[in-house]
């Protein structure tokens, strides 16, 4: 079997497509921003993204390979083979899968290689990598299965490639990553989430099941139509069906793909006060947070009150959507600065009350948004990154950028005026 597999790999037409697969993988890795370098969960998730494109490409390629074998007319010889049909199919299917997995693995190894010098602890996160592998396997299995049913070198490869792409785009992403779907791909790997073992196993099993189904089902698919086959239990086909059935049940019952991680035993915290504590994986951002902590400490003390500690999302547990922490979005600490600005503003403002009318509410809201924008710029220090556009509604960002260059006294006066608006907003309960 090993010799046959090697021959199939050596002779497959897909060897010409391998450079293109590798190019796509590396372009996806490095074409997207390189924020993931140095953060293992992000690196792992980034290395998984190419599967979004490699999967559909492999589906089309597998369909084309399977159909072209039937087209080459070897059906008769294969029908007279002593080897069981699933071995014959598996040899070819494995060769097709090899090219996809090879390109994907090269990308994953490259991602690991560039991350190692800068990265924190917890070397490599296999969960996302295996998720991408599952996706590639699922798509290849589907493509081969459909390709076996036809001699068409046009319709089925196109349908498989585009069909997989559309399916992934509409249903494929994991819920909680900005879209809703069945969790075959993710766009990012924040340190506070991890891939759960059971759902991942379900996806891997589905991939294996589809491979088994594609190789095992219908030995009669090899035969010319209209002729009956020998009686006997199609064990290989039944095994494939069984595996897929188990995988589907597990898929449905295993729960969501992503789960919140447990609180880290040793979060990384800045030395300066207020402390900013992050996941150990976010080690590379600590120098930046040290500077941000110093900038917070430099804010007008009488005017701005600061919590003692700021936490990255998930570091101290609890639900993630309660605004209790900050997150680092694609290597940018701007959103972290905004979250901290909101916390600072909350701490510096009087307790919330319902305003007496809409006008009062709007007035207060505008003042608060301006304060938050000002605080964000002060904390971030470098101004708004080019990739992040706009800001809170109704706030003149340009004016804020000018403001932070003005003398401290002028800024304090400006902020004091706005806090006055907040304090003096008439409440409905008064």
């Amino acid at each position: 079997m090993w010799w046959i597999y090697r021959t199939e790999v050596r002779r497959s037409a897909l060897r010409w497509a391998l450079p293109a697969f590798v190019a796509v993988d590396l372009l996806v890795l490095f074409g997207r921003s390189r924020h993931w370098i140095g953060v293992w969960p992000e690196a792992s998730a980034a290395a998984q993204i190419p599967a979004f494109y490699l999967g559909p490409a492999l589906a089309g390629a597998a369909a084309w390979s399977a159909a072209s074998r039937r087209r080459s007319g070897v059906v008769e010889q294969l029908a007279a083979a002593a080897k069981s049909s699933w071995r014959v199919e598996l040899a070819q299917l494995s060769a097709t899968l090899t090219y996809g997995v090879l390109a994907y693995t090269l990308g994953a190894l490259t991602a690991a290689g560039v991350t190692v010098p800068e990265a924190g602890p917890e070397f490599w996160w296999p969960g996302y990598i295996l998720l991408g592998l599952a996706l590639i396997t699922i798509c290849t299995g589907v493509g081969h299965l459909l390709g076996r049913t036809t001699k068409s070198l046009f319709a089925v490869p196109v349908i498989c490639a585009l069909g997989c792409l559309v399916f992934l785009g509409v249903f494929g992403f994991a819920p909680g990553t900005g879209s809703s779907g069945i969790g075959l791909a993710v766009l990012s790997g924040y340190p506070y989430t991890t891939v759960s073992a059971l759902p991942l196993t379900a996806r891997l099993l589905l991939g294996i099941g589809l491979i088994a189904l594609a190789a095992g089902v219908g030995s009669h698919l090899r035969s010319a139509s209209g002729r009956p086959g020998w009686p006997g239990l199609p064990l290989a086909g039944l095994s494939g069906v069984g595996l897929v059935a188990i995988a589907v049940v597990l898929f449905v019952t295993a729960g969501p793909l992503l789960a919140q991680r447990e609180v880290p035993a040793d979060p990384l915290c800045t030395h300066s006060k207020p402390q900013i504590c992050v996941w150990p994986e976010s080690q590379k951002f600590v120098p930046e947070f040290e500077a941000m902590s110093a900038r917070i400490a430099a804010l007008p003390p009488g005017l701005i009150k600061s919590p003692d500690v700021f936490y990255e999302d998930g570091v101290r547990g609890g639900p993630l959507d309660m605004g209790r922490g900050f997150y680092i979005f694609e290597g940018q600490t701007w959103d972290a600065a905004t979250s901290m600005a909101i916390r600072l503003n909350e701490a510096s403002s009087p307790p919330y009350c319902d305003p007496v009318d809409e006008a009062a509410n709007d007035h207060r809201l505008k003042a608060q948004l301006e304060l938050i924008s000002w605080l964000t710029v002060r904390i971030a220090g470098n101004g708004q990154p080019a990739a992040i556009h706009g800001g809170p509604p109704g706030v003149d960002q340009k004016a804020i950028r000018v403001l932070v260059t003005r003398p401290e006294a002028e800024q304090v006066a400006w902020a004091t005026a706005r806090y006055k608006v907040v304090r003096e907003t008439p409440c409905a309960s008064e």
Partner: protein
Amino acid sequence: MTGLVQGYGNRQVIRGMDLALGVGVFGLLGPNGAGKTTLFRTLATVTPPHGGSLTICGEEVLSEASARRARRNIGFLPQDFAYFPSYSVYDFVRYCAWLRDVPEREADRATRLALEKVDLADRAKARMKSLSGGMVRRAGIASAIVGAPRLLLLDEPTVGLDPAQRLEFRSLIRSLRDVAVVLSTHLVEDVAALCDDVAVLTGGSFVFRGTPADLAGRATADSVGDSPLEQGYMAVLGQDQRAAV
């Protein structure tokens, strides 16, 4: 085979045929549509018969599993065989050895031996798609004989071979030992040169069984043909057609 019935759907192509083969060369003649290829496919266990029984090298073939076991002893060269164009000659024959379950440790030697026998050893690395028609046919023969099968089914094996290559083919068949060869051909000279027994198949039944000499003896004064064997063949066919009328 005992009482073999074979067909497609409701159409019967072979009706109640008995055939016992031993070591030697068995020739099969017949007009187009007589059922020769159907018989070959049945002997090769590609399709189960509609009726009767089939035993290959002591193994009664009743199911997919027993069919696959039987195929280890069968070398089959279809009339229109195909190949993977990107394969080399060696790859092609070695692949067929793998299909026939030739043990891995013997497959390489068996492949090289088969290629030597058909005089393609020096073209082992050539791609199949680069071969001439005759060479492709010889590669096909190599794929059928690789691993020394005990039953060799050759459907029109000499199509595309030049006269010198046909002589080599005959020499190859004669050199095979302990093999039952079933040879279907339109070339009566091949039958005359090679076959111990010959049968004429028409309308799904044998209308003649015997030696080539017996077949030649069936010729009459007004039989058409350029050789005694051809005349005998035409005579047998003619008698069959008159009997049908």
